[in-house]
């Protein structure tokens, strides 16, 4: 029904002898959340790096809104509208939290979208931080990123994405390192972004929370997409059970998080 925003077709990448991503294809539509799950080292982050231009694929194509963006530099890919968070967070540690959003707000993309009148960037940054759960009237937004707890830094990554006014957001294990309360309060933020028409890719190990907000999941193992479908379909497929070494383990992981 809605338009396809992002098409990944036949993408492969190997590092030396390791095949990190092996012939992966999928589509992403506006206003959709696609979950990606898979054991450690199954190539999820590498796939994100391929889409966002940090890694050039050996084979395959990435197409965003009819433009072939395969192998384009990261700043170009963000510029056309794909924002990401880093699994290994990359805040500007020496800056206050709200200043961490300035590069995003200063970017050509945002300046173009706002048609020159971008007003007070600091104020916009504060608004976005409030959106991702920084208490506005406290000292938290002014604290330097160095002194913030990990959960805040993860949400700061999300804030940096939102600031870019993207059409696609890729969240690489956003929930890991967050407390249960933080995850619970972050879920509605993501749902709101989806309702605004943003397409979202969520890589997650925390299946319970992921399955709450998505009905389309890709499962990775050894770089291959081994299953795709609704959470129930995927969890009942034999390949997935094998990949996770038995269905009990999925239950365990689900409850453990």
């Amino acid at each position, binding site marked *: 029904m809605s338009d396809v925003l992002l098409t990944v077709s036949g993408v492969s990448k190997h590092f030396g002898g390791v095949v990190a991503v092996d012939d992966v294809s999928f589509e992403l539509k506006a206003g959709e959340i696609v979950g990606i799950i898979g054991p450690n080292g199954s190539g999820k982050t590498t796939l994100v790096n391929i889409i966002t231009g940090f890694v050039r694929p050996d084979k395959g194509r990435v197409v965003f809104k009819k433009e072939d963006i395969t192998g384009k530099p990261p700043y170009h890919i*963000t*510029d056309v509208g794909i924002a990401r968070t880093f699994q290994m967070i990359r805040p*500007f540690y020496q800056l*206050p939290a709200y200043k961490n959003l300035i590069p995003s*707000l*200063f970017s050509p993309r*945002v300046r173009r979208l706002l048609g020159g009148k971008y007003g007070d960037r600091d104020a916009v940054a504060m608004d976005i931080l409030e959106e991702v759960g920084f208490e506005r009237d406290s000292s938290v937004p*002014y604290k330097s990123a160095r002194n913030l707890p990990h959960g805040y830094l993860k949400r700061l990554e999300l804030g940096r994405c939102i600031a*870019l006014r993207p059409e696609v957001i890729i969240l690489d294990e956003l929930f890991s390192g967050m407390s249960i309360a933080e995850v619970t309060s972050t879920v509605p933020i993501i749902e709101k972004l989806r309702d605004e028409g943003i397409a979202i890719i969520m890589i997650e190990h925390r299946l319970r929370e992921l399955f709450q907000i998505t009905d389309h999941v890709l499962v990775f193992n050894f770089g291959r997409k081994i299953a795709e479908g609704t959470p129930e379909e995927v969890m009942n497929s034999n390949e997935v059970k094998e990949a996770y070494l038995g269905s009990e383990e999925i239950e365990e992981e689900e409850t453990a998080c």
Partner: protein
Amino acid sequence: MERRKERIDRGVKVRSDGIYALNSYREVFYLAFPRLIPILGLLVICPLFSEYWKEVFVSTAVYALLAVSWELLYMGGLISLGQSLFYGVGAYIAGALNAYWGVPPILSLPIATLVGGVFCTLMLLPVLRLRGIYFAMVTLVLPLLLSRFVEATRILGGTEGLTGIDSFSSQWVAFYLVQVALLVAFFGFRRLEGSDYGLVIKGINDNDRAIMSSGINIYWYKTQILFMAGAVGAFAGAYGAHYDMFAGIPGFALDYSILPIAAAAVGGMGSFAGPLLGAFILVPLSEILRALGALRIVFYGLFLVFAVVGLPEGLFHFIRRKYEQIERWVEVDKG
């Protein structure tokens, strides 16, 4: 009982990130005083110097220009070991314009500044993607290469250089011109540093992937700071050519590359005031030490070592800390 040093921010500075709440003239003065030092120092005190020290001052200011230019590149993560590239290129452009076509300084200076900035940027553009020491190596080699090139092809006067370049109309013009240029470069760069643009430049230095994933083309920004740093350095060279009435291979000499780095190390990297202060210590010091003859370089070297070992943060950061914080010894109970 044990004693420990306690540091307290001076109460005057009600700080919420660069926004100051000012309540009295005293507080205004507290903030304005450090910024007035370079302005008053240059414009009011230096003119009182003797002719000899005025000359020293001019050469100090030229080095200081190269030092703030160095600091701008450093801010963006580009380490330059070849500030003499900028100086030499600027000197040759202004020198050639004047010697061959009689272009007066009032035109040759701005032309050399702009064209020199563009030329240096183009020379370094192919290696802009190199980081750290690799970029530094190229900047070190380029001026050597250019001087050999001039020597071999005998263009631009070859090893003789270009002589008989017009001087400035008066010593006072020369004197104030370099002061104003230095103040403009210094306060201009500081302003840039404090802006969102500067925040992005510094971000490129310590987190380039995050900057890239903000949709910012880091190479375009590096090109911009390269141009600005190159233009300031080229101005220094063009000025030097008119002041010395000579442009030649010595313009690519190592002195112009080393001193800015030494100034930054002594004065303190990471702020524009540090290298400026460093240049104003090192160049006059080297003049004073002239009396020692052959031992001069030994004492100069010793001073450098002691300064860097004694105050690794740099003199400026040390002074700033003393200015902004009260230190006192307090007694603490042990256990």
